[in-house]
C-alpha cells in the first residue's frame, strides 16, 4: 500500500508539476500579450532532453545530478498531498527539510563539477540565496510549529480545523510566501539562474539528458516547496482541494514573477534579512504573546 | 562661419604659418597643416571649445604616396566642426599619438594601425583589434583588393542548375 501511495505521490508530482509549469508559461504569455506554448509543452521538453546525447563532465558531475534528483524524489515521497500521505507519521517537517538539502547539495556538487565559472558563480549565488530565504522561512515555520506544538506536516494541516494558518498568522504566511518565491526561483528571486548575466548559471554546462533530469528535479522540488506551503498554511484539504490550492498558489507566484525583474544577489539577502526576517520575528513574538487570530 | 570659428582660425593663424583653410559649409571648416604642427593645433582647438573628438581617420592617397590623417573636432557650444588634416609619408607611415588629449584616440590609432599600417609614437598598444590572423596588406589601403582576397580565402558557390529550363517550366513553355 505504501508503495502504491509513493507511486501516486510521485506521479502526481510529475504530471501536475509539469502541467502547471506549462500553464505558468501560458499565463506568462498572456501577460506578455501572446498565446504561448501548449500546456503539455514541458512534457515534450523533458522527454526530448532525455532523448538527446549529453556530454558528461566527470563522475562528480554525473553523481551530483543523480543525487539531486534522487534527493528531491525522496523528499517528495514524504510530503503529504492533502490526505494522500505516503508515509503516515513520517512526514515530519524536519525530515523533509533535511532530505531536501540533499537534493540541493547534489545539485551544487554536480554543477561545480562541470568546471564552468558561470556555473560556480550560479551555485554560489544559489547557496547565498538559500541562506537568504531559509532563515525567515524557518523562523516563520518555527512560530507555526510552536503554536501547533507538532512537527508533522499532516499534523500541522489537520490542526487548522477552524481557520487556516494563513489567517491565523497572516504575517507568517506572507513571510513564508515570499520565501517560497525565493525557493521556487521565481522573479524577483531567480538570481542564481539569471541567463543574461551568467548564462543560466548552474545549468550552463548541462546538456541533453542532464538537462532533462534537472528539469525533472526542478519540477519535483517546486512541487515539494509549494506542497509544504499549502499543507502548512492553507487549511485542511483532500487530494482534490489540495491540487486546487496548489494551482492557485502557483498561479499567484507566476503572476508576480511576470511583472517583476530580478534582484541582485546581495539585494536578495539584504531584502530577506530586512523585511521578511523581521516580520517573521514579529510573528514569532505574536505567537509567543498569544496574539493569534 | 560662426564667430567663434573665425576667432579660432585667427588664433590658429597666429601660431601656424601657411594655414590652408577651406570652408565646407557654415559650420564646417577644413584646415590643412604640416605634420609637425598638428599637436599644437589640436591642443589649441581643444582649448578653444572644440573639445569633442568625433573621429580620427585616414585617407590613402596612393598616387601622391601620402596618407592623409584626419582629425574631426566638434564644439558643443556652437556646433562648429573642424576637420584637421595632415599628410604623412605613405612609406614611413608614422605619426605621434594624441591619446593624452583624448583617451579614445588610443583605439582610433590602433584601428588605423590595423587598417592602414600607420603607427603612432607613444601609443604602444598596436595589437590587432578587429581582425584575427590577418595575413595580407592592411585592408583599407588602396592597393589591397578585397575581392581577390575573398576569392582566395572564401570560395563562392557554383550553381549547376539549369535555371532557364526551370524558368520555362514555370512559364509553361515546357512541361516538367
Amino acid at each position, binding site marked *: 500500500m505504501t508503495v502504491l501511495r509513493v507511486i501516486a505521490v510521485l506521479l502526481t508530482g510529475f504530471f501536475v508539476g509539469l502541467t502547471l509549469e506549462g500553464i505558468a508559461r501560458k*499565463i506568462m*504569455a*498572456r*501577460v*506578455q*500579450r*501572446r*498565446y504561448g506554448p501548449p500546456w503539455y509543452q514541458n512534457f515534450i521538453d523533458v522527454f526530448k532532453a532525455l532523448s538527446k546525447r549529453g556530454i558528461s563532465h566527470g563522475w562528480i558531475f554525473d553523481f551530483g545530478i543523480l543525487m539531486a534528483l534522487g534527493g528531491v524524489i525522496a523528499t517528495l515521497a514524504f510530503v503529504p498531498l492533502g490526505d494522500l500521505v505516503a508515509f503516515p507519521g513520517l512526514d515530519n517537517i524536519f525530515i523533509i527539510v533535511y532530505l531536501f538539502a540533499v537534493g540541493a547539495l547534489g545539485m551544487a556538487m554536480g554543477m561545480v563539477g562541470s568546471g564552468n565559472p558561470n556555473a560556480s558563480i550560479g551555485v554560489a549565488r544559489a547557496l547565498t540565496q538559500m541562506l537568504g530565504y531559509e532563515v525567515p522561512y524557518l523562523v516563520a515555520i518555527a512560530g507555526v510549529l510552536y503554536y501547533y506544538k507538532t512537527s508533522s506536516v499532516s499534523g500541522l494541516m489537520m490542526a487548522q480545523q477552524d481557520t487556516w494558518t494563513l489567517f491565523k498568522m497572516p504575517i507568517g504566511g506572507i513571510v513564508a510566501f515570499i520565501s517560497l518565491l525565493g525557493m521556487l526561483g521565481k522573479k524577483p528571486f531567480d538570481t542564481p539562474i539569471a541567463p543574461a548575466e551568467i548564462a543560466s548559471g548552474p545549468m550552463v554546462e548541462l546538456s541533453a539528458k542532464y538537462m532533462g533530469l534537472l528539469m525533472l528535479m526542478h519540477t519535483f522540488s517546486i512541487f515539494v516547496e509549494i506542497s509544504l506551503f499549502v499543507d502548512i498554511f492553507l487549511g485542511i484539504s483532500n487530494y482534490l482541494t489540495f491540487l486546487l490550492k496548489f494551482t492557485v498558489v502557483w498561479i499567484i507566484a507566476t*503572476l508576480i514573477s*511576470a*511583472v*517583476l525583474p530580478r534582484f541582485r544577489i546581495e539585494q536578495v539577502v539584504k531584502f530577506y534579512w530586512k523585511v521578511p526576517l523581521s516580520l517573521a520575528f514579529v510573528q514569532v513574538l505574536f505567537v509567543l504573546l498569544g496574539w493569534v487570530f | 562661419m560662426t564667430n567663434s570659428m573665425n576667432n579660432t582660425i585667427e588664433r590658429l593663424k597666429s601660431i601656424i604659418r601657411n594655414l590652408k583653410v577651406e570652408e565646407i559649409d557654415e559650420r564646417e571648416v577644413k584646415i590643412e597643416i604640416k605634420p609637425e604642427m598638428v599637436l599644437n593645433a589640436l591642443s589649441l582647438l581643444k582649448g578653444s571649445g572644440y573639445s569633442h573628438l568625433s573621429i580620427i581617420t585616414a585617407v590613402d592617397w596612393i598616387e601622391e604616396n601620402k596618407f592623409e590623417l584626419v582629425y574631426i573636432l566638434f564644439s558643443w557650444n556652437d556646433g562648429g566642426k573642424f576637420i584637421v588634416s595632415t599628410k604623412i609619408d605613405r612609406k614611413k607611415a608614422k605619426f605621434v599619438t594624441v591619446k593624452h588629449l583624448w583617451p579614445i584616440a588610443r583605439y582610433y590609432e590602433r584601428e588605423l594601425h590595423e587598417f592602414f599600417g600607420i603607427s603612432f609614437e607613444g601609443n604602444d598598444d598596436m595589437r590587432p583589434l578587429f581582425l584575427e590572423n590577418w595575413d595580407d596588406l592592411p585592408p583599407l589601403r588602396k592597393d589591397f583588393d578585397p575581392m581577390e582576397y575573398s576569392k582566395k580565402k572564401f570560395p563562392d*558557390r557554383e*550553381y*549547376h*542548375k539549369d*535555371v*532557364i529550363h*526551370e*524558368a520555362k*517550366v*514555370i*512559364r*509553361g513553355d515546357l512541361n516538367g
Partner: protein
Amino acid sequence: MKNKTMPDKDFFSPIKAWKFLFKKPVTIKVPYVKREAAERYRGFHINDWNECIGCGTCAKICPTDAIKMVEVDDLPQEYGQKPQRPVIDYGRCSFCAMCVDICTTGSLKMTREYVHISPEPEDFIFAPTEKGIHGIEEVPVGWVRDEASELLELERVEMEMLDGEERVQSFIEYVKGYSKEQAIHEAARCVECALCTDRCPQHMQIPEYIKAIWKDDLNDALKWLLKGDETNNMLGANPFSAVCGRVCTHKCEEACSIGNRGEAIAIRWLKRYIVDNVSDYKKIIEIKPAKKDKKIAIIGSGPAGLSAAYFLSTMGYDVEVFESLSKPGGVMRYGIPSYRLPDEALDKDIAFIQALGVKIHVGISVGKDISLESLKEKYDAVFISTGFSLGRSTKVPGTDHEDVLQALPLLREIRDYLRGEGPKPKIPKSLVVIGGGNVAMDVARSIARLQKVEYGQVDVKVTSLERTFDEMPADMEEIEEGSEEGIEFYPGWGPVRIIIDEEKIKGVELKKCVEVFDENGRFNPKFDEIQKLYLDADMVVEAIGQAPDYSYLPEDLKEQLEFVRGRLVTNEYRQTNIEWLFAGGDIVNGPDIIHGVADGYWAARGIDEYLSKGVK
C-alpha cells in the same frame, strides 16, 4: 510635454500589467494566418519575358553581383533585343530593388512574396518569369518603379539647332553639335547594354566610345571610333566618323534600350562630338601595319570604297581608288546637302584615309578611261562600289520635260555650285518633289534654301504615295525640320501627269493613293482615281529611287555575276562569284553610309583572306 521628473516608486503599478491576462493577444498566428506584405514590398522578382529585352542593365546596377544574364536559345532574335534573361541568385540579392528602378523596359518588378525556404542551396537561383519564382498564376506585385524612383535619365540633352526660319537662309550646317558639358551629360545616360552595337551594321563599339566621352577621354573615344575593337580585327571601326556623326541613319538609336521608355541616347551626335573636338586624327591614332606586297584597286570613292581602302591599308595593302568625278566621296560629296554634311567634315575623314597611303585617282571613269580587265591585270583584287547613280522616273506623261529633273544630278549640281565649281542651277519659284525618301527631303530642303536666298520665300511641295509620315521612308526628323523650314507635305498622292502649258510646267496632277503595299508587303500601290489634287509648280523633281549603273562591267563578267533586283549577290565577305572581284555599297546592300562602311570592312577582311590564301 510629459512630466519630466522621474516617476516615484510604486509598489502596485506593475500589477497593472495583469490586465492583459484577459485581453486578446497581439500575436499573428503565422503560419495559420497569412499576412500580405505591404504594397511596396520588395519581395522576390518577376520578369515579363515578353517585355524584357535582355539588356543586362539590372546586372550592372546590382550592388551584390547577384544578377547574371544567361542565354536563352529559343528567344526571337530581333534587333533591340538580346536572347538572354536575368538570373537572380538569392544567395546574393539584397532586395534593394535597384534592378527594378533601372529596368529599361519595366519588365522587372518585385512581388510581395517573401517566403522561400529550402534545404537545397541550388534552389536559390532563379530566372524570374511572369509567374515569379514559384509559378503562381497571379503574383501580387510589390515594388515597382515610378517616376520618383527612376534611375535612368529618360530625356535626351537637347541639341541646339538653328531654328527653321534662320537655317533656311543658308547652307550653313544647322546642327550645332554638343558642347563638352552636354556631351558628357548625354554620355552619362548610357547604360552600356550594347544593343546598339548589335544593331549597327558595322557593329561600332558604341558603349565604349560613349564611356570614353563620359570619362572625358576623347583620344580613347577616337581610338574606339577609328580602330574599333583592336583585339577583334578592328570590328566596329568607322573611318567616316565625322560623316556618320552627322548624317548616319542611326539605326543604333532605334535599338537603344533607353528608347524603350524614353528618348534614345543621341549616339550620332556623340560621335560627332568626338570627331569635332579632336584636332587631327593622325596625331592620336597610330596605324603602322606591316607592309604587304599586294595591290588592290577600288572603283568608286563612296563610303564603301573608301572604307575598304581604309581597312585594307591598315592591313598593309597598297590601295588605289578610282573615282570618275572630280572629288572623292561619292554620295557624301555629291548627294548629301552641305547644310547636313559640310565638306570640311568629309575632308577630315578622307584626309586621314589618304594619310595612310591610299591613292585616290579622281576623274578616271572605269569602263571609259580604263577597263576593268586591265585593272585585274595590274592589281591582285578589285573592289567595286559604284553606287546607285542613275535616277528613276515615274514615267507619267510630261516627265520628259526639261524642267522635270532627277534628284541626284540636281543635288550634285547644287553642291558644285555652292562649292564654286559649277554654274548656278535653275531655281524654281515653286517646286514639287515627288517622293518620300531622304533624297526627296534633301532636294526639297536644298531648293528651299536657294529659293529663300533668291526670292526671299519658300514654295516647295513634297508628295509621296505613303499616306502618313510614319510610312514615309524619310526620317521623321527630316520631315519635321522640313516643315519648320516651310516645306509643305502632301502624303498619300500619286502623280498622274505633269501639267504643261506652253512648254512650261504649270503643275502636277495627283490622285489619291489608298494602299501602297499589298497583303504580301510588296510594293503595289492602289489609287482612288476620283480624288484628284493639283499642285502648282514650275519645276518638278523626281526622287523616287535610284538605280545602279553596271555599264562598266564587261559582258563576260556580267554573265558570271548574279543579280537580284539590280543588286549583286556576294558572300558574307562581299566576294562575288568571281573570286578576285569584291563588291560593296549600294550595289550590294545599301541603303546608307554605315552599310557601305560595313561592306568596306567585310570586303577588306575578305580580300585579306583571299590574298593570304593565295600566298599559301
